[in-house]
Every structure is written in C-alpha cells, then in structure tokens.
C-alpha cells in the first residue's frame, strides 16, 4: 500500500490541493485478559489503512480507507478535496501550515525480546500468577475479591509522505499492563487501585516490571489502608505529593492547557479550551522551583517517537520554565499562527484519525532535595503518595485529586495512614504553592484521551516528590 500513499499525495496535488499528506499505518496488537482467576479471552487486532489529509483553498479535508484499492483511493482523495473545498464557505480565515524542512528518514525501536518470541501460554501464565498472588489473603493480608488484569502488546509501522518531499518510515513496539484490584474488609468497606505500566519496548520491559511483586505490594497497601487509615484532616496544611500524583497533575494542568489547539479554541466542543491565552507566554504562574517539560524523545517511554505525524522531528519542549509559561505544544497549523516552527506535537491514534496536538511524556524536572529533607520541614501535613479519583474542568483551571496511599506528617516525620484526603485547587494556586521538589523522578504510563472521535494516545507522565505549602484539604463539610 506504500505506492497508494504516494499516489494519494500526487493525485491530491493534481486535483488542486496546496498541500497533501498520506500516512500508511499498520497496527498489530495482541490482548490477554484474566478476570478473577479466569482466562477470559485472548485476542488480536490486525489493522492497516491509509489516512490522507489535504489542504485546498484554506480548507482542510481528511479521509481514510483500509482496502488496498487504487480506485477507492482515487474516490476518497476526490472526496477529501471536494469536502475541504465545500467547507471554505464556512471559513473566515484560511488554514495555513508552518514551513518545515523536508526530511527523508527511517527510525525504529528494536525490541530485545520481540513479543512473538514469547508464547501465549507464558503471557497468560504471568497474568494468572499475578491473580494467584493478589487473591491470596495470606500473601497480601486482605481479601481481594475482584481482580482484573490485561496485557496489551502492539507493533506499529508507519509510512508518512507529503507533497513537500518529506517521507518518514517508523516501527515501534509498545506494551501495556493494566490491573484493577478491589480489596474488601468487613466493616471498613472497599478500596480499589489501578496499576498501569507501559513502555515502547519488547517483552524485556515486562520482565523488568516485576509485575508479581508490584501487584502484591499494591494489594498489601489496600489492606493497610482499610485496616489502619484514619480520617484525613481538612483545612490548611502542608502537602507532599508523590511522584505518581505529580505526574498526573502536570499532565492535566500544564500539558493539556498548553496545547495550542485548545488555546485557539479548536477543541472547544468536547475536550474544551484553556485558561492559558496566547499572550500569557512569559508570564509567571508558578514558583521558581517548577519546570515542566514534555519530551517524546525519551528512550523506552510509552509516549516515544522521533518524528510526529506531520513528519516534523521531535524534541524536548520546556512548557513551564522556573515557574514561567515558556512554550506551547504545536502542530504546523497552530505554529504558523504564532509565527514559530512546529515542535512536533501532532499525533494520530490510528490511520483513520487526523493528527491533533498531543502530549508525549510530560514531567516536572527533579530538584536537589532528598525526600526526607522535604518531609523534615513539615510540622503538620499529609503525604499523598498515590491518587484514586481525579478530574479537572475543561479550561484546566479547577482540579481535584483524591489520595489513595496517604500518610500523616507530624513534626517532620511520616506517621500513620490517612484515608482519601481531597485536594481541590486552582491551577495557578497549585504552582504558586510549590516550594520544594526532591531529586527523584518516576513515570507512569497512561492512555490520554482527546478529540472527536476520541483518540487514545500512549503517554507517560511523571515527576519528583513535591511539597506544597499552605494548601487546604477539602470535601463537603
């Protein structure tokens, strides 16, 4: 179908397009599911298709097809051109794309242990072993009556070509583990935890995750929460957020609101807009200890890529630098509006999706403290190590995180567990309250959703442990 991608671009240009691109994408994925010790299902997805995008008269048209038929490509290119042209009448300002250097590249992540070299049996056995450990109250000290485990592995190959001479081929493996544990203790109710691990590697990643030990520890923690956690304090407090929580916070409240398509209102219908405006570049929004980056080039990361889905080379983006709004995430459409080059944030979740602005691996840079030092200066506070529930409004201004594994801090020392403290805070207040970050850096995998149709994109988010001064823990009085 590579020939068809080239044909699509040439054909669109002959039909009068100012710009055309085609992305041939193949996704080969396997899924394994175990629920409560039962091997529910294994399965696979074998998808291949062509996504074609054209710009004509300032209107943008996208089409996709998945049958290798030249006549169908011809029909669909005509459709893209026709619909894009027809849309011009409801357009105030023609769409333009930033000028980017044409590249011809091929990049690949080679797995040490390809997924196909590991038997289905071994993969199912792994999930069943995790289930066996977590279902044993002897092992984890609590009853875990509901357990769901999934393992998803995929190989994605792409060939991107455009009318400006760019041609990029790529190949990348990805693997994701998901677990949901529900622990129950008589008279104490239930506690739940989700586990997500993901990397752009082969089976060697799964081996390094030590999933059995990891799941055992998470289940044990649920038991400790149920059996020992006291009521969380409310009111004014110092708060230390663990790596996992910090990762989610920066993803939601720096990554998303710095997506230029949100800032320009293009995502207003569903995902929403942003409290950040284009004239806020250079404005201080946090303390000097906060620097947040997004970096697709991190090796092994779940959000890894070297060229985005517009063929632009990836690089680290400094979104917030020492507390100052420094850079937005751009594709070629928003970059030209701000008179900058694209910083390669255009990603599509499949061949049949238009590339839109997405994060890759978003994280707060670590500082110099060790964890004990940031705890030592807290007279009365809470350490929220992991989160349970969270959400944020569609302008990314009003956010809430409820802790899962949490500890009281008194006179500089970690004490017993507390249950479900609620941090409900505005984004500027959050970054203005950070006074110390430690030197650790950990990442979590996630599938970030955005767009219509919804596009789930693999990402990492992470950060150090972070201390906030004088925040309020909330909830309904």
């Amino acid at each position, binding site marked *: 179908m590579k020939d068809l991608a080239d044909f699509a671009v040439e054909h669109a240009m002959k039909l009068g397009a100012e710009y055309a691109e085609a992305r041939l994408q193949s996704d080969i994925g396997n899924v394994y599911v175990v629920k409560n010790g*039962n091997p*529910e299902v*294994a399965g696979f997805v*074998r998808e291949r*298709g062509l996504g074609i995008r054209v710009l004509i008269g300032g209107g943008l048209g996208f089409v996709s097809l998945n049958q290798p038929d030249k006549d169908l490509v011809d029909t669909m290119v005509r459709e893209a051109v026709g619909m894009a042209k*027809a849309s011009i009448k409801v*357009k105030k300002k023609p769409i333009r794309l930033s000028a980017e250097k044409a590249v011809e590249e091929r990049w690949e992540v080679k797995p040490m242990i390809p997924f196909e070299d590991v038997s289905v049996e071994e993969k199912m056995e792994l999930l069943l072993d995790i289930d066996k450990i977590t279902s044993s109250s002897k092992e984890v000290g609590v009853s875990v009556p509901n357990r769901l485990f999934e393992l998803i592995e995929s190989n994605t190959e792409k060939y991107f070509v455009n009318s400006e001479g760019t041609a990029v081929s790529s190949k990348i493996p990805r693997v994701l583990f998901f677990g949901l544990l529900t622990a129950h203790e008589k008279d104490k109710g239930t506690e739940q935890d989700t586990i997500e691990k993901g990397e752009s590697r082969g089976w060697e990643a799964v081996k390094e995750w030590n999933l059995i030990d990891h799941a055992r520890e998470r289940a044990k923690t649920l038991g400790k929460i149920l059996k020992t956690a006291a009521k969380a304090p409310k009111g004014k407090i110092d708060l230390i957020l663990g790596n996992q929580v910090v990762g989610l916070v920066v993803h939601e409240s720096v990554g998303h609101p710095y997506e230029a398509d949100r800032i320009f209102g293009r995502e207003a219908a569903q995902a929403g807009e942003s409290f950040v405006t284009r004239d806020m570049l250079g404005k201080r929004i946090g303390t000097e200890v906060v620097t947040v980056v997004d970096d697709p080039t991190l090796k092994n990361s779940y959000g890894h890529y070297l060229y985005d889905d517009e063929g632009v080379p990836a690089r680290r983006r400094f979104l917030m630098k020492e507390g100052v709004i420094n850079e937005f995430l751009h594709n070629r459409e928003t970059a030209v509006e701000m008179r900058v080059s694209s910083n390669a944030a255009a990603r599509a979740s499949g061949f049949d999706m238009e590339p839109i602005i997405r994060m890759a691996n978003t994280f707060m840079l670590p500082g110099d403290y060790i964890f004990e030092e940031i705890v030592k200066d807290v007279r009365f506070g809470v350490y929220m190590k992991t989160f349970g*529930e969270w959400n944020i*409004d569609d302008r990314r201004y009003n956010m809430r995180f409820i802790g899962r594994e949490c500890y009281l801090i008194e006179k500089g020392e970690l004490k017993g567990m507390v249950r479900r403290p609620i941090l409900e805070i505005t984004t500027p207040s959050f970054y203005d309250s950070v006074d110390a970050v430690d030197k650790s850096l950990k990442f979590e995998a996630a599938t970030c959703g955005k767009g219509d149709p919804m596009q789930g994109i693999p990402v990492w988010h992470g950060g150090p442990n972070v201390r906030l001064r004088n925040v309020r823990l909330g909830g309904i009085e």
Partner: protein
Amino acid sequence: METREISSFIVDEGLRSGADEIAVIATHGTARQVRFANNEVTITTTWDETGASILLKKDKRILTAYITDVSKDGIRGTLKDLMHMVKLMKPHKSYAPLPEGPFKYQTIQGLYDERIPKLEEKNIDYVEATMNSALESGAKRVAGTLLTMDSESSLKSSRNAEGTRRKTTINMMVRSLANGESSGMGVTCGTTLKDFNPEKAGEEAGRLAKMSIDAVSGKSGKYNVVLSRSASAILFDIIAGMDSAFYVDSGNSCLADKLGEKIAFEELSMYDDARATQGLGSTPFDDEGYPTGKTVIIENGRLQSYLHNSLTSKKYKTESTANAGWIVPHAWNIIVKGGKITEEELLKEVKEGLYINNITYVRFQDYSKGDFSAITRDGVFKIENGAITRAVRGLRLSDNIIHMLQNITNLSKEAKQVSHWWMEFGTPSVTTPLILCRNTGFTTPTK
C-alpha cells in the same frame, strides 16, 4: 466481497481449520464528520472502512480478533494464527456455547434513511445553519461536530445464526461560548432525518451560553439539583455499564449483590431496548446472534436484572439477555421512563437548588462503592423559588451513584434520546427525561 460473503467465508474456513465454534460480524461503513470551532469549519473527515470481528472457540478456549485485511488469503492467514494461538490458551472456567439457531430477526422500523449517505456537502449547510442559530441566540463563538454514518453489518455463526443490519445515524453536538467561561450545549440525533433539528440544537446552545454570562462562584454543599437530559444521560450510562455482569464481576460496579434490592426512587424505571425506533444503538441481533428485545434493569426503583451474554449468564445460572458483547455484555439503547409532570413543574418543585445542563470528566474513587465526581458545565444555574435565576461556576458534582439514585424524587414527563461524547461506558444512546435529585453534593476549589 460483500459483508455477508465475508462472514460466511470466515465461518466456513474457521470450521475447516478445526474451530469448535465461530462467529463473525463483518462490517462496511462510510461516515462523514464536519468539525467546527470559532464559527468556522476546522476540518471535514470521511471514513470508508471494512473489517471483520471474529470469535473463535476451541476446547473451551476463547479468542477474538479484528481484521481489516478481508481478502481470502488474509482471512486464511488470520485463522491460521488464531488456531495456533488457541491451542496455547487456557480453558474458560464458565464456558458456554454460542446460541443455537436459526433465529428469525424482526425488522426494526426507522433504522435506515437513504437520504443520510447522500447528504455529502449538505452536511456543511447543516453546520452553518446550526452556527447561525446559536449566534442569533446569544453565542459569540460556536463549536461542535456533525457526524453521519451509513453502515452494514452481517453476522454469521457456526450455530446457524445469520443476519444483516443496515443503519444510518446522524448526530449534531453543538457547544456555544458567549463570554469568558460561559457556555451552553445542544444535541440533536437519530437514525433518520425525521426529528433532526440542528437549528434547535444551536438555539439551545446559544441561549444557555447567553444565560451563563456573569456567573457567580458556587459554594460547596448539598443541593437539590435538576439534571438536564445530557447530564442525566451520563448518570444512566454509568448505571447501564455497571449493570453489565462482566463489570459486576470485575469490581467496576456498585450494583454487585443488589439484584432484587430497591436501589432507586420508586418511580424510576429504566430498561435497555435494542429495538427502539430511531435508537442509535438499535440492532435486531446481539453479537452472539440472539434476537434482541427489551431488558428491564430497574423497575419502580428495584434492580431487576444484569445485562448478560452466554458466558456471564452461564456463570449466573440465568438466560442471556441478548446483550452480547462476546466478552463484555453492554446496553444498546437505555430508556428511562418519563414522570408525570412537565419540565416547568419539575423546576417549580425546587425552592432553592441548581440546574445542571451537562457533566463530563466522570472519575471514580471506588467503582465498587460508586463514589465519584464530575465536572459541571454548559449551563449551570441557581434555582430559586422554582425558577432559574443566575449562572453559577466552579462547581464539581461529588457524590455517590446509589445515593443519587435513591435521592431522585421526580422526573419530567417527556423523555428524549441523547447521545454524548462522554459516555463512561459507551452506551450508544440514552432516552431520558429531566430528573430532580435531592441532597446532592457539590464541591469547589479551596485555594
């Protein structure tokens, strides 16, 4: 090959390859979408996709696959891989065979409108009309999506289930922004153009956005709240999802161990109707080939049934409710029975409270208990002495699913179909009235 030929070919080849049982759903569809924002079209999209979903069983081991290469060689290659894979799987502990056909599927009226695939560039006219209507009603900026679909799906199983459904859908979601944070939303959807009214959706979105100007900061606390249809749809999608026997078992449901219990307001009745006229999710057969029908989920406040496929019904020692999903049973069209009073009368029942037009970003602290929170938007208003008075901002719905069901005290008369991009469990459509829910929790940022 046509979809019927694809499904037949896969079943025949699968049996020849040694499968005990096999079911296939082959689909071909074309869809058009127009996205718009800032009062202009941002992109048009057209999809043409063909694919086949396959369920294969051998020695009580279960595999599924989705493929887009539906050439004969491609299919043979897929089946070879599946047969290799299935031998390495473990047997399912509550295995059940596929249902034995043949079955007779009755036609569902109103599922196909031949005008919809022919709309083509007319879709852009609909978008323009919607935006104009929203702007005339008070919007400053309008965004949204119009999606039209035309699809054909053919099911065939090795146990003599065979059927084809052809369906069109049209769905306009419009969001208006008036000033700063003020926004409103309108929806119109269906399987035909009969009741499709984009201007009305635009008018509603624009009017709500205008009403949302000069919102005051909300205060944390418990409120009596009227949920509009869009907001109610999100709540009932969650109930429908949590009613899937798969999720009951996996810990994703607060309905576990509650069959037969009174879990909701005594006048609340909710069912799944796979045969609803104009239902976005309507289908004459489920994924296993059972003829579909109506499944009562809640009747007069009492939880009546979980949604089942063959596998889950075997475990629960009951019959399938024709809600397969080969692995996860799911709802097709959720219908919530309307009450006895008008929307105005429902509002009048609230002396002091809130009206919420839309909720999104639902997240659970604990699915099994039902503790959750969600973002309110697109028209959040104070109700004082039975009338909407002014807009409120910054409120987060923070409550519990069962608590909310039990605190519903009335429903408006007219139920209408709603589709929503934020359906936590993916129910295609929810037909619902407005609901009044007492003593519902809302929180705000503390700094």
